[in-house]
């Protein structure tokens, strides 16, 4: 298996700043907006963005939640290995809020579909948007597109996109793995 480096830590930093600015453009001071990171991997990106918005762009009172979608997946019992749930940490209601769902890679769209269902347990939001670091177009199973994307990638199905974070792999990077 070989892998190609798609983004290095500098690229990711620039993208994070751009995404933060795009969010500010649409959501001003975030007074009626909440960020929801999808567990497990979307939570790193969500935490990073929230931190950036607070420190570099002086957004106060930013609400960030983490959502686990394991119990809402449509492939329960259809996978080879069982999935273990991660924790959901949403201590606010999303009723009438503008929600931004955050995940690292958008591939089939099924996780986002599950997240949309899961969100119903926390109220009826005013609107929901989707932010992803990597958008793998041409591989969607559902009619779901991101509102904010870090980078669009034309990877074919046999290839795998791997996002690593300093928190987990000591390095911010995005790779494409070829079999």
């Amino acid at each position: 298996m070989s892998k190609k480096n798609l983004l290095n830590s500098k690229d990711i930093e620039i993208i994070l700043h751009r995404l933060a600015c795009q969010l500010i453009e649409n959501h001003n001071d975030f007074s009626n907006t909440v960020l929801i990171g999808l567990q497990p991997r979307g939570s790193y990106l969500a935490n990073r963005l929230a931190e950036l918005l607070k420190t570099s762009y002086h957004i106060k009172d930013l609400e960030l939640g983490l959502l686990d979608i394991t119990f809402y997946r449509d492939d329960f019992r259809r996978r080879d290995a069982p999935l273990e749930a991660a924790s959901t940490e949403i201590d606010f209601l999303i009723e009438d809020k503008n929600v931004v769902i955050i995940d690292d890679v958008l591939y089939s769209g099924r996780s986002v579909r599950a997240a949309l269902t899961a969100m119903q347990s926390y109220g009826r939001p005013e609107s929901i948007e989707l932010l992803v670091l990597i958008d793998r177009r041409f591989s969607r199973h559902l009619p779901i597109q991101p509102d904010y994307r870090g980078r669009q990638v034309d990877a074919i199905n046999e290839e795998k996109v791997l996002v690593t974070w300093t928190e987990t792999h000591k390095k911010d990077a995005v790779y494409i793995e070829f079999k």
Partner: protein
Amino acid sequence: MAELSVEHLLGIKYLKENDIDLIFRTADHFKEVINRPIKKVPSLRDITIANLFFENSTRTKLSFELAEKRLSADVINFSAGQSSVKKGETLIDTVNNILAMKVDIVVMRHASVGAGVFLSRHVDAKIINAGDGTHEHPTQALLDSYSIREKLGNVKGKKIVIVGDILHSRVALSNIFALQLQGAQVKVCGPTTLIPKYISSLGVEVESNLKKALEWCDVANVLRVQHERMDIKYFPSTREYTQLFGINQDILNNLGKKIVIMHPGPINRGVEITSEVADCNESVILNQVENGVAVRMAVIYLLAQQVKR
């Protein structure tokens, strides 16, 4: 990976420590779910569960049914009182008739010891034992341990005394297995007539003095005197039982430390435990009921993961 080592939940004695750990970690997530405004997840949309209660039950049946509904499973209920069991149908026939309706999981309570094990060998469904005679009641033991873990942070190394009718109690036996598996120390306390003869073979000590037992323990799990299972008189009178083995506030006040009070219900207030104790701050009796739903959701969810189509 996150999978139980067993195909059915027939008793705690078939489980490994990792299984209990996995069930508790999963129950943590479900506890969060049942405290949401909308307390339901769609995981088990395509699973059908039959609750077969050949013996009376109120809270266990309600708890299982609620757990199943919170997971979005389809549920059918069966009580022996209103069924063909009275017309002479055998257990396997009854269950096979129900399975012909495409049921994936059977939750069963039965008066005969080993009914769950017997069924698991003869029918093609996941079996969850909701109490078999005086043998095991695994989900009760799991929720008891879960409640201890929640209150004290850990079960390992804790000292637990089970007070009361040990002889007729499936809760006691399952609790002993579960607590020992997790590294806790267990003692039992009760009238000698209600302590099983071979209890020491389980590595459980007997303490006949309630005060000494309570001084030793971190947690007291108080059991109900099961008059309905007693064919002979095991102690002279209820009044005498209360005097020797009833827990009241005075006894707790004189301990010089706080201990956690548990009771699997239903409580005979004023017999094994006074109202004051049952409702005190150290009592986790109602937490046990809430945790029961989360733990049962976890068990059902983990077993349903193994259902193949």
